[in-house]
C-alpha cells in the first residue's frame, strides 16, 4: 500500500539522516499499542494492569531499553467495549512515528475474539495472558494468538488437582461433591465442558450453577449450594459477582475457605469489598501480589520514586492486577529480546516478535536475572504450545492481603491437549484454515 511506501521512504530517510547527524535515534523504537480501559465497570482491572505494564516498559527504558532499542507506547481507551477495542486496534496497529508495533494486549475476551482474524491478517501477535480462547493454545491453527501462562482449561484442571491434594490424592476425589458457580457469559461457560470431563475422570459429583450477569443477587444459588453440601465451591466470577458470592456464602453459612476463586476472582478488588466475609477465601494466581521482588523494587526506584509511576493511587503498587501488568510486560519484552537475538537489535515487525513469543524460554536462571523469580512461572513456548506454563499457586485472603499457601500446582496438560486440539481442528475446518506443520518450524 501507499502508506507502507511512505513509511519505508521515511524510514530510509531517517536512517540516512540519522546516520549523518548523531545516531541518537538511529536505533529506533519498538512500539506497544495499548488498548487500555481506565473508565467503565472494569476500570479497576484496566488501570492496575496497564499501570503495571506501562511502568515496566518505563523501567526497561530507564535501564537502556532492550539492547538499546527504546520502547514506546500510546493508549487508546476501549472501556472494555468490543467495537471501541476494534477501533483502537485499527488505529494503533500501524505503529507510532515509524516505530513498528510489537504485539497487542487487549486484556478483554471480547476484544481478543474480535481482533483474532485481524491479528493473523496483519501479522501482529495477540497476547491474552491468563485468558482468551482455550484452543488458541494450538499454535498450528492460531499462529498469532498467545494465551500465555494459563488458558481456561489449565486453570480448572489445576484447581481440581489442588482439591485432590487437599483431600489426600486425586483417587480420593471419587464421590466428593464440587459445585462450580459461574458467571453467565461465554467466559463463565467456557470451562463447563472440560469440568464435566474431569468429573467423569475422577468420579466426583459436579454441579454447575449459573449466576446471571452482573451477579449482584445470588441468594437462590447459595441456598441451593447449602442443600447440596459440596466439599468445595469453585467460584468462576467476574467483577461485582465475587464479593457478593463471598457475602452470600457467609449468610447461608458455607465455609469461605472451601471456596476457590479462579483467575478473575483473585484480586484485592474481589476480596476486600466483602469485608470480614472474605477472610479465609482461597484463590488461584499465576503471580503473587507483593512488592518484595527485585523487579518491583527496581520499578519503585527508577519509575515510581522518579514521579513517573502510572498508577493514580500509589497504594495499588504490588497488587494482583498491577503485578499481572508487570508480568505481562516482562513476557512481552522478553519476546522482543529473544526475537532480537535472531533478527538483530533493531525495532522488529510483529511477525518477527511473533517468532520471539513462539520461542519464549524462561527458566529459573533467566527469571532470577530479571528479578522475577517466583513472580513469573517458568515458561517454554513452541509452535504447537502457545501457553507454555499451565501452573498456578494458591493464595488465601487474610482480611488485609493475599498470602501464598501453596507451591506451583501444575494442570494435567496431557489430558487437556487432545480436547484443545479437537477444538482447534473444528475451528480450522469452519474457517478453511490449513494448519501449519509444527515439525517444520524452526
Amino acid at each position, binding site marked *: 500500500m501507499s502508506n507502507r511506501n511512505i513509511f519505508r521512504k521515511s524510514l530510509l530517510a531517517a536512517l540516512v539522516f540519522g546516520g549523518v547527524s548523531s545516531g541518537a535515534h538511529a536505533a529506533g523504537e519498538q512500539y506497544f499499542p495499548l488498548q487500555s480501559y481506565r*473508565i467503565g465497570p472494569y476500570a479497576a482491572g484496566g488501570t492496575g494492569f496497564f499501570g503495571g505494564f506501562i511502568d515496566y516498559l518505563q523501567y526497561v527504558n530507564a535501564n537502556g531499553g532492550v539492547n538499546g532499542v527504546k520502547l514506546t507506547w*500510546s*493508549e*487508546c*481507551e476501549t472501556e472494555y467495549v468490543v467495537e471501541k477495542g476494534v477501533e483502537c486496534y485499527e488505529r494503533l496497529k500501524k505503529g507510532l512515528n515509524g516505530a513498528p508495533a510489537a504485539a497487542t494486549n487487549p486484556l478483554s475476551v471480547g476484544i481478543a475474539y474480535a481482533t483474532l482474524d485481524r491479528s493473523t491478517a*496483519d501479522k501482529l501477535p495477540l497476547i491474552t495472558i491468563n485468558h482468551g480462547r482455550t484452543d488458541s493454545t494450538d499454535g498450528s491453527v492460531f499462529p498469532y494468538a498467545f494465551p500465555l501462562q494459563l488458558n481456561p482449561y489449565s486453570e480448572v484442571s489445576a484447581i481440581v488437582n489442588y482439591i485432590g491434594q487437599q483431600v489426600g490424592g486425586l483417587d480420593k476425589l471419587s464421590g466428593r461433591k464440587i459445585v462450580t458457580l459461574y458467571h453467565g457469559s461465554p467466559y463463565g461457560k467456557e470451562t463447563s465442558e472440560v469440568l464435566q470431563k474431569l468429573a467423569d475422570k475422577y468420579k466426583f459429583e459436579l454441579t454447575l450453577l449459573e449466576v446471571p450477569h452482573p451477579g449482584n443477587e445470588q441468594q437462590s444459588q447459595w441456598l441451593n449450594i447449602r442443600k447440596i453440601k459440596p466439599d468445595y465451591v469453585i467460584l468462576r466470577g467476574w467483577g461485582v459477582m465475587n464479593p457478593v458470592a463471598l457475602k452470600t456464602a457467609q449468610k447461608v453459612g458455607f465455609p469461605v475457605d472451601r471456596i476457590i476463586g479462579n483467575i478473575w476472582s483473585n484480586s484485592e478488588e474481589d476480596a476486600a469489598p466483602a469485608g470480614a466475609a472474605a477472610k479465609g477465601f482461597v484463590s488461584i494466581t499465576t503471580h503473587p501480589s507483593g512488592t518484595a521482588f527485585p523487579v518491583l523494587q527496581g520499578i519503585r526506584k527508577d519509575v515510581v520514586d522518579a514521579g513517573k509511576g502510572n498508577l493514580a493511587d500509589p497504594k495499588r503498587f504490588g497488587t494482583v492486577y498491577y503485578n499481572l501488568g508487570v508480568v505481562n510486560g516482562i513476557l512481552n519484552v522478553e519476546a522482543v529480546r529473544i526475537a532480537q537475538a535472531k533478527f538483530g537489535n533493531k525495532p522488529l515487525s510483529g511477525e518477527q516478535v511473533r517468532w520471539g513469543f513462539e520461542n519464549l524460554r524462561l527458566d529459573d536462571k533467566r527469571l532470577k536475572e530479571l528479578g522475577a523469580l517466583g513472580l513469573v512461572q517458568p515458561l517454554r513456548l513452541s509452535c504447537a504450545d502457545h501457553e507454555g506454563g499451565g501452573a498456578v499457586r494458591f493464595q488465601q485472603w487474610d482480611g488485609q492481603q493475599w498470602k501464598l499457601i501453596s507451591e506451583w500446582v501444575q494442570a494435567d496438560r496431557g489430558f487437556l491437549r487432545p480436547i484443545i486440539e479437537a477444538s482447534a481442528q473444528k475451528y480450522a475446518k469452519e474457517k478453511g484454515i490449513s494448519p501449519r506443520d509444527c515439525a517444520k518450524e524452526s
Partner: protein
Amino acid sequence: MLYTEAGQFSTTYRADRRVFRLRQDRIALGTLLAFAVAVVPLIGNDYWFSAILIPFLVLSLAGLGLNLLTGYAGQLSLGSAAFMAAGAFAAYNFNLRIEGLPLLVSFGLGGLVAALLSIVFGLPSLRIKGFYLIVSTLAAQFLIPWVLVKFGWFSNFNASGVITAPPLEIAGYDLSSPGGRYLLTLAVVIALAWLASNIVRSELGRNWMAVRDMDTAAAVIGISLPKAKLLAFGISGFYLGIAGSLWAFTYLGTVEPHGFDLARSFQVLFIIIIGGMGSILGNFLGAAFIVLFPLLLSNLAALLPVGLIDAGQLENIQKMVFGALIIAFLIREPDGLARLWQQFRARARRWPLRY
C-alpha cells in the same frame, strides 16, 4: 443558484413521481454512490474501512430496519439487537450446516429467521400500543440472547459460545480483506436501502404511515391493521437480521451473544431519534453522528500532549462533550438531522434570496 429547479419540467407522470425530481439531486446521489463504490476502495486504508465505514454502514442498515417499524409504522421496539443476534446466528448456522450455501443466501435466510421471530414478538402489537409494546420487544431482547447462550447448538458447541465468520467468498472472489468487506457491506446496504425507499412509497408504506398517524382512522378506511403491523415487524426484523449478519461477519469477525445486548438496541434507537424518524436518509445521518463523532473527539483528544489531562478524565470529558452535542442538536431540531438537511435544501433552492 446552482440548486434550482428552474427549467426542469416533468413531462410524464412517471417523471413527476420519481424520488429525486431535481436533476441536481440525482447527479449528487450518483456521484456519491460512484465515489463510495469506485473511489473509496482505492483511497481508503484499513483504519477507515474496518473502524469507521463498515460499522457506519451496518448501523445505518440497523437504523433503517428499526425506522421502518418505528418511524413509518409507529410501533415502538427495544428488541433491535436481539433480532440482529438472531440473524447473525441463523446465518452462521445455515452456512455451517448446509454445504456450499452461497454467503449472500445465508445472509438472506438469517434475515428471514429474524423476520419470523420479529413477527412472533410483534403479535402483542395487535392488542397493545405505545410504551406497553416496548415490554414485549424487551422480552425478545432478553430471551433471544439467553437462548443463544443456553443452547450450545447455536454456536456449534463452541466452548465460549461465540460464532466466527465463515470464509467471505462470493462467486470465487475472496472478500476477506478490509476493502472487500467494505464493498460487500456497501453492496448489501445500497440494495436494501433502495428496496426500503420503494417500500415506503408503496401501498404498504402508505398503510404504515396511516397506522402510525391514527390506527383507528386507518382501520375505518379499510386498512388491515394486523397485516400492516405484522408486515412492519417482519420486514424490520429482516433488515435487522441482515444487519446482524454483517455486524458479525464483515465487521467483527467473531461475536458473542452478549455483543447484541440492550445497549445495542438503545444505540439503534438513538440513531433513528437523532437521525430522524420516518426518513431513509436520517438513518445514515444518525449512524454517522453516533459512529463518527466519538471517534473524532477521541482522535482530537489523542492530539493533546500526553499527561496534560489524565487519560481516564479525558475519556469522561469526551463523553460529556458528546452528550452535550446530542442535547444541543435535539434542542435545535427535535425532528432529527434529516429535518435539518431538508431545511438546508429548501433554503439552498431559494438562495441567494431570503427564506
